[in-house]
């Protein structure tokens, strides 16, 4: 570190030395760099994911890609299930209260008596994905870790009503399944 610092002090300021004024050594360095980048793309890594055919979570493609999708990306919600496959949600309505976009709609109902561990569960749990601003406040408000935001973002639909997700869809909202499969010809 110290050595390189001394070197900087001895040298002329940038742009004043002869080689900088001639400009050609810098051009040559630049050309070398671009060739290295070019060859790097040819042989090894590139940032492009061949998206509709290959998902961004496809392992082999992700290794080649320079940027991985961040697991903390705030995309669509998922309702978390407990060990017995039931929704964890206790219909406390805290997420509904925390939501600044008022996109969550919950109608609670009493749990069946055999559940035993909680009194309420959501009869209706709807999120309007068109209103949602993906702020993640619902995730923070939830005391049971029942709602989470996933990195899933690829969700085209053909109508607005389809954008209102019901409970069943939210429970099965698996981010790994977001790659659309092209119909075989």
């Amino acid at each position, binding site marked *: 570190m110290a050595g390189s610092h001394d070197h900087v002090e001895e040298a002329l300021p940038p742009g004043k030395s002869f080689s900088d004024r001639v400009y050609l050594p810098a051009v040559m360095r630049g*050309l070398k760099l671009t*060739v290295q*980048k070019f060859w790097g*793309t040819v042989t090894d890594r590139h940032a*492009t994911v061949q998206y509709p055919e290959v998902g961004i979570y496809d392992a082999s493609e992700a290794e080649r890609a320079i940027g991985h999708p961040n697991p903390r990306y705030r995309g669509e919600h998922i309702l978390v299930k407990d060990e017995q496959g039931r929704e964890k949600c206790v219909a406390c309505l805290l997420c509904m209260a925390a939501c600044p976009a008022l996109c969550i709609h919950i109608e609670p109902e009493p749990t069946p008596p055999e559940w035993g561990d909680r009194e309420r569960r959501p009869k209706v749990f709807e999120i309007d994905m068109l209103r949602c601003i993906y702020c993640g406040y619902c995730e923070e408000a939830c005391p049971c870790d029942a709602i989470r935001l996933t990195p899933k973002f690829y969700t085209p639909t053909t109508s607005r009503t389809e954008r209102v997700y019901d409970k069943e869809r939210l429970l099965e909202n698996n981010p790994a399944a977001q790659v659309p499969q092209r119909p075989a010809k």
Partner: protein
Amino acid sequence: MTEYVLTPEMIGFVGTVLKALLVIGMALQIVPGCIYFERKIAAYVQHRLGPNRVNFTIGTLRYLMPESMRDSIPEGLARVKLIPGSLQPLADAIKLAFKEEVIPEKADKLLYNLGPALAFIPVGTALCFLPFGATLVVPDMVIGGVEVQRTAIEMSVSNVVPGMLMLLAVSSLGVYGIACGGWGSGSKYPLMGAIRAAAQMVSYEVPLGIAFLIALASVGSLDGQEIVRNQAETNGGVLGWLIFRQPLAALIFLVAMFAENNRLPFDLPEAEPELVGGYHTEYTGLKFAIFFLGEYCAMILMCGLFTTLFLGGWSFGPFEATQFGPVSLGGWITPEGGIINTLLSIVVFSTKLLLVLLLQLWIRWTLPRFRYDQLMDLGWKVLTPLALGNLAITAILITKFPNFTFFA
């Protein structure tokens, strides 16, 4: 004995038409490839993949096969792409052809419509003077009762003797198209782009012309074919190329060439962040396409000129040094003046041209754009004095040491 006689004039006329078709065809063929490779190189330098969707696949070849054999290609193999994205320029051209033609209300209609044509015509004309191959000699012969008289066909569309001078003169007219387009658009950004283009092209014409002069003075001829022959015969082949005899002039020519073509790092006339699209901002559809075409043809022209002047044109180094033939590519492959010799020399010329073109693309994705004052400083305060000094030294060397072939 024979009824018909093909005189050299007749053969020359047919040859000229064929050569014109060849040159224009080649230039227009190189343009889409050039666009494709430009986009690919851009992508790869930036860790992207570039266009890779529009192309033929192996499955496309099925349609060339008889119906019964089509199923013989397995599905996996049929999806393999042949040169991914190679049809992208074609797709772009089709898109441009079907675009609505919008003419701005305030446009000067005459100049607006004239602009693209004026930008393309000089370039196309200048391509005529480029020597692209070794002389083809049609021998005396009789074919099917037709007597053919011996004719030497020079491999440039027009072989006027001051061809290089004509080339420089005509190619400089391209700035009129840009100026017309910029002024005729009746909009401020194109006007500024056109002013920049005019100032830049006129400024860089000076070092370009002087570097040109240095090359011509070293060779002592204005004839393109003579320039190539001289380079092939001097210093035993490769070392006779003017890039080794006049490296500084070659460098000046190269830099000025970028500025003449409005290529990065000197693409101020089209500086997107400042001027939207420069002089062609208001152009749509095919008029824009013609501007684009003219620009790329100008690149090809300048690369061809650099090849001719400094890289030995169509001559190919190692073969010239042999005792068998002083000039032609294959003194020992084919007789000089033969058809194979000519074809090989055309291939050599095209290869060199494409390599220079590749350098242009490569530089484009390496260097950032110059500032306007830096551009003018470089042109007037650096390149012009250097070129003038080089010309003076060359002139002195030529008069004092006529046998000294290096740096003169």
